[in-house]
């Protein structure tokens, strides 16, 4: 039977971050994982997937911490105040919280889409990661913005912002969430091909696209650090689907959990 999660806020009250801790099924574990969410509508659509992943990792013996970045989910702040760098620092704070509160010594980070990019950047900036899982990472900020704007433009008229904003190259809102100039600039500057060193001794790249679109990043990261694990498991894009029609990608979740559990690999 699944154990209850422990929900709590951490950090200073004015900027507190919401987190859920899934305790490991084993009574004591020194291993922990921080899960980093994607942003905006992709966060809402993949929240269930993260809960399943967290439970599976807890069953595999990890303390798991899911948390909301500043200005997102239940955390303090408004989305308009969000910046990519702040989310990277929030993730660093979550690494610290996992170590301090649950006495974890070995920290993994995992994320899907923009969450994968944030996990990678947090590992680079804050260090100390034992493992990293990059699941369908957003590799290029401009490409990502192009995709989500195109996705928005495919929505029925009542779901799209006014035509003035729609025609803009830098829209003020995307799929139900504000897009400030600052955040737009942060995303536009994101490029994982700038990464020159992978910040963990073990890294897994998960690619669910039919066309293996992450092969290029795999080659780049192997060139930078060597020894990148790669799993190609095609699955529909959960992050673009109506939450009511989403199929949880259990094969990918199982694969991630197996890889994280197999610590000798």
């Amino acid at each position, binding site marked *: *039977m*699944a*154990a*209850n*999660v*422990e*929900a*709590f*806020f951490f950090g200073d*009250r004015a900027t*507190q971050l*919401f987190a*859920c801790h899934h305790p490991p099924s084993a009574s004591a574990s020194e291993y922990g994982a921080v899960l980093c969410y994607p942003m905006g*509508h992709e966060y*809402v659509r993949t*929240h*269930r997937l993260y*809960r399943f992943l967290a439970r599976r990792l807890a069953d595999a013996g990890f303390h798991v911490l899911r948390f909301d970045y500043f200005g*997102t*989910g*239940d955390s*303090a702040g408004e*989305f308009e105040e969000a910046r990519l760098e702040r989310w990277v620092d929030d993730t660093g704070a979550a690494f610290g919280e996992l170590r301090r509160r649950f006495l974890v010594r070995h920290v993994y980070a995992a994320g899907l889409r923009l969450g994968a990019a944030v996990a990678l950047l947090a590992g680079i900036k804050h260090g100390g990661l034992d493992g990293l899982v990059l699941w369908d990472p957003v590799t290029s900020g401009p490409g990502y913005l192009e995709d989500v704007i195109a996705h928005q433009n495919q*929505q*029925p*008229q*009542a*779901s*799209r*912002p*006014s035509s003035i904003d729609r025609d803009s190259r830098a829209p*003020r*809102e995307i*799929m*139900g*969430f*504000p897009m400030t100039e600052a955040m737009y600039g942060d995303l536009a500057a994101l490029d994982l091909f700038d990464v020159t060193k992978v910040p963990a001794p073990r890294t897994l790249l998960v690619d669910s696209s039919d066309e293996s679109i992450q092969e290029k990043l795999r080659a780049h990261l192997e060139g930078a650090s060597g020894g990148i694990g790669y799993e190609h498991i095609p699955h529909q894009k959960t992050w673009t689907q109506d*939450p*009511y029609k989403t199929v949880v990608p259990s094969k990918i979740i199982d694969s991630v959990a197996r890889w994280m559990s197999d610590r000798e690999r």
Partner: protein
Amino acid sequence: MREEAVHFGASKSLVGVVTDPAEDGSSRPAVILLNSGIIHRVGPNRLYVTLARRLAQAGFVVLRFDLSGIGDSIIRRDNVPFERSSVQETQEAMAYLAATRGVDRFLLAGICTGAVVAYHTARADQRVVGALLINGQGYIPESEEDIHAYLVNRQRRRYYLDRALYSLESWRKLVTGRVKFGDLLRVLGVKRDGLRRSQRSRNPKTEEIASGFGSLADGRTNLFFLYSAGDLGIEELNVILDGRVAELAARETVRYSIVGQADHMFTTLASQEEFVRRAGEWLGQMAGTVR
């Protein structure tokens, strides 16, 4: 304003966040926000967080939480059907706020199925003094398949008559043969949909729900039906009330309002702002008027 993560319910398995106002909020009814379908308690487009914080600034205690099996609350193992467990868990949320915040009156609000849970809880519990029913869908059980097929046809008919008729792209599709004519004629009512209005209105389930709305309106519970223009829920309410929506909306305890240029989940920022404004205004009025 301050926010606290809370666990409550029989096995403390229900997870929520209470937003407390800066001053003591116990003299007002507390607001409970109910899951919109399977979207977790932050609500579609984080709307419940926005609404909770605005309401707390206006002096309300607000709880947003996940029903079992949704968001961060684990699934129940006792096989109690959702129709009952959702009401029971909402009552547990009220009990939690009563015990920790000293509140004994409640305003429930929910989008889509959250509206349905609000309705059923209001019917079951006299502590509920008002229900904000937003784009309510699913009052009529899905097992009533013929009614649901009819509702979808009604919604498409409204789309064709209100929007597609005036859209250049729609006419382009029509003349280039990219429209299924049989479907179009059926939806527009030229072909019969096989279900007579008189048969629908005699359905005992719809009768029961209509009578439930009437009882709430006659009694102690204020109702605000808030819809996005073109939402399927508008048609469902119309079927439930057998076309007498205006009659119900005319009662002193009932308000009915439609937000233009909005979809089911209030995706655009402009529609979100309008939603929060109207919801906040009504809830604010409730604080001053409910017994």
